[in-house]
């Protein structure tokens, strides 16, 4: 305890954290940085709920027999795991936490364009989250996160409507966040901050916002139709009354495929920042990386039916969607090549954020390449709805999105909290996450190809060895995720005070105090330099006491 008093600096500058105190100053704040922290708390909560479900799923799958939980409980577990992780963790994670915190800072604005709407979107998220929790605690839902009709409308006895409404409400939170970002990026850039000077993190968030704005309304209305169909039996999705269940799948995937890019694009933005900073170089092919984000967002809307190749859609349509799916792979590949090329002739530091970026590169590459398997019609028939798909999208969403998220949290933690985290522990955590992740999900590729269907709570015994490996990996992965939470919390009290620019990084967010003052900058910044001007920064080497652990 005496340590604590010692570690707090005697004179603290006024910043967004200490300007006001009290619950009210948080719950009614319109400061984007405080709202980001509100989001951080709430999505972390949901992450661990979703993670707990994942743990139970993996434990059940340790043995071929269905022994730990009942079949219907298992179905609820994977449904709630998917819904919580997708709608309450992955989609808001980077945009609502790091995006919220950094978008105004990076473009030199005092706040987002609509601060009250920003707060409203957090409240919508919380209302949706509370509805989801209520739904879980009073029986849960068992349709899978995909809500496929007619099972969800006519056969499930669980709380489908309530879960749907929870996601509907959370969807509007996502729409409003996207709206705020688009307007802010267009209207509130500091003088001199032209589009070609925007950090790639901003480009990525701009692309993400496009998807949030144009995709989310479609799933919202689709969930309304599902709720109405379930309550009133309208016939819209009921084949007995002439409805077509595949129409639901079209509408659902029209959002839910691009939604994958809501999760991965911001992460790509983070990786661009980290790789540039720790290679001490401007990102290779800046404009290609920037436009590939936009290309991914747009092409992402053209490929949804590749989730439906065996669903009974037309063979010709399948052909079109398969071809378009390969189109969206090109900008992703371009990004990976550019990041790799950025490291060429760099001056590379191995700090924790960079380790996460290395991890991202490896895992995203595997995730992306296995996407080629799934987009190939002939192979998709065999591997769709098996563990191959599970492995593929976890490589993208966990290996890609979560690695980026954690990398970003480490990179900007000194800015957010004004404290340094323990570098050694951070490196260890990055290593544990990487190993645990691969052990969990790599065996699932093999499981999928040898034919284990997804959403099975009992399975033929020949699948056991691979499942045991996967469960073992999940345990390691769980530890890897708990560690950062522990040392981040620890650092808030005991961490060394962070300098304003601990990494000697480019970008406006590093030019203000750590943590930043309420209105972000003491005087309005004027930008006179290009993005990633590391060659200039390198001429002024970091002072010895500033870096985290170098």
């Amino acid at each position, binding site marked *: 305890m005496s340590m604590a008093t010692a570690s707090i600096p005697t004179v603290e500058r006024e910043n967004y954290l200490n300007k006001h105190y009290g619950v009210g100053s948080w719950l009614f704040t319109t400061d984007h940085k405080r709202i980001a922290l509100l989001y951080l708390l709430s999505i972390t909560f949901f992450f661990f709920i979703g993670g707990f479900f994942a743990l139970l799923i993996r434990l059940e799958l340790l043995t071929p027999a269905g022994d730990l939980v009942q079949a219907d409980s298992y179905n609820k577990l994977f449904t709630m795991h998917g819904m919580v992780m997708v709608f309450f963790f992955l989609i808001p994670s980077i945009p609502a936490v790091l995006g919220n915190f950094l978008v105004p800072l990076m473009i030199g*604005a*005092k*706040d*987002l*364009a*609509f*601060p009250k709407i920003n707060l409203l979107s957090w409240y919508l998220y919380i209302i949706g989250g509370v509805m989801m929790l209520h739904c879980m605690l009073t029986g849960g839902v068992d349709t899978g996160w995909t809500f496929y009709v007619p099972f969800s409308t006519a056969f499930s006895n669980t709380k489908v409507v309530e879960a749907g409404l929870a996601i509907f409400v959370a969807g509007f939170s996502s*729409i409003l966040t996207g*709206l705020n970002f*688009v*307007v*802010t990026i*267009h*209207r*509130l850039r500091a003088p001199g901050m032209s589009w070609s000077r925007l950090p790639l993190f901003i480009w990525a968030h701009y692309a993400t916002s496009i998807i949030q*704005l*144009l*995709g*989310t*309304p*479609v799933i*919202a*209305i*689709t969930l*309304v*139709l599902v709720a*109405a169909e379930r309550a*009133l*039996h*309208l*016939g*819209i999705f009921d084949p*007995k*009354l*002439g*409805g*077509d269940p595949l*129409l639901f799948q*079209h*509408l659902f995937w*029209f959002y839910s495929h691009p939604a994958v890019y809501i999760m991965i694009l911001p992460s790509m933005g983070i990786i661009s920042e980290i790789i540039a900073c720790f290679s001490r170089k401007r990102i290779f092919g800046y404009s290609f990386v920037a436009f590939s984000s936009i290309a991914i967002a747009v092409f992402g809307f053209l490929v949804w039916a590749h989730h439906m190749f065996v669903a009974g859609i037309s063979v010709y349509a399948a052909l079109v969607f398969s071809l378009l799916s390969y189109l969206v792979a090109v900008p992703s590949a371009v990004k990976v090549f550019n990041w790799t090329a950025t490291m060429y002739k760099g001056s590379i530091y191995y700090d924790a954020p960079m380790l996460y970026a290395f991890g991202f590169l490896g895992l995203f590459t595997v995730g992306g390449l296995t996407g080629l398997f799934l987009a190939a019609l002939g192979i998709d028939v065999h591997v769709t709805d098996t563990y191959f798909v599970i492995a593929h999208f976890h490589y993208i969403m966990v290996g890609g999105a979560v690695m980026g998220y954690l990398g970003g949290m480490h990179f900007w933690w000194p800015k957010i909290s004004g404290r340094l985290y323990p570098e050694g522990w951070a490196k260890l955590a990055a290593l544990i996450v990487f190993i645990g992740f691969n052990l969990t999900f790599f065996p699932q590729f093999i499981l999928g190809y040898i034919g284990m269907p997804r959403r099975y709570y009992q399975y033929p015994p020949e699948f056991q060895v691979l499942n045991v490996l996967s469960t073992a990996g999940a345990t390691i992965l769980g530890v890897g995720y708990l560690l950062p939470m522990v040392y981040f919390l620890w650092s808030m009290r005991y961490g060394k005070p962070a300098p304003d620019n601990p990494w000697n990084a480019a970008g406006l967010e590093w030019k203000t105090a750590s943590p930043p003052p309420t*209105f972000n900058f003491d005087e*309005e910044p004027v930008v006179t330099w290009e993005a990633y001007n590391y060659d200039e920064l390198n001429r002024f080497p970091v002072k010895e006491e500033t870096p985290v652990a170098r």
Partner: protein
Amino acid sequence: MPDSQLTAAHNPALLHHFAEPQQQRDAASLGTWVFLGTEIMFFGGLFCTYLVYRRGYFGDWGAASKTLDVTLGATNTAVLICSSLTVVLAVWAAQTGRRRLLIGNLLATLVLGTAFLGIKGIEYKEKFEKHHVPGASFQFNNVRIPGHPDQYANPSHAEIFFALYFVMTGLHALHMIVGIGIFIWLTVMAWKGRFTPEYNTPVEMGGLYWHFVDIIWIYLFPLLYLIDRHP
């Protein structure tokens, strides 16, 4: 920037994070347009559903559409068009500083909007009486398909039509109700004299929203009321 602080001091409506009123106005305008863009996609899911089933069940839908009252539908279209005129006049009045004209047009818009909902209510009531509301008591037996006098419409397919009719017009009506709420607020603000030729963004943005809801109806009217109408 001393400039912006100066402006801020002069203009109580300028929020702290904007440098100048023009920037704030542009942000509001872009925000509204982007919001309307999401609304297009929101109704877009319904239009997609509509397209799929209208293509599949054209005859049954023609029969179902024919039971709608085209006079009431057309009247409502006219009512909304008139309200769009009063809205644009209100915006003009606000921009030119004519307070009484502004209030008058806002009130006229409210009256027209309420009239629209009233007429819609009459139509809904009729649907209930005729058992054309999807659900357990839905009935659509022995209705002939237009152009095929010996063929009866399939009640299930007609039910899908009415389901979409209620979802689409219902969501539209919900937007109207929200619009009326916005316009009541605008009227109160106008009454208090908040809007000046320099500051009238809320009137303009409310107007954009109202016109958008009008455009949705401009499509709903032919799509729902005018399928296969000819004798």
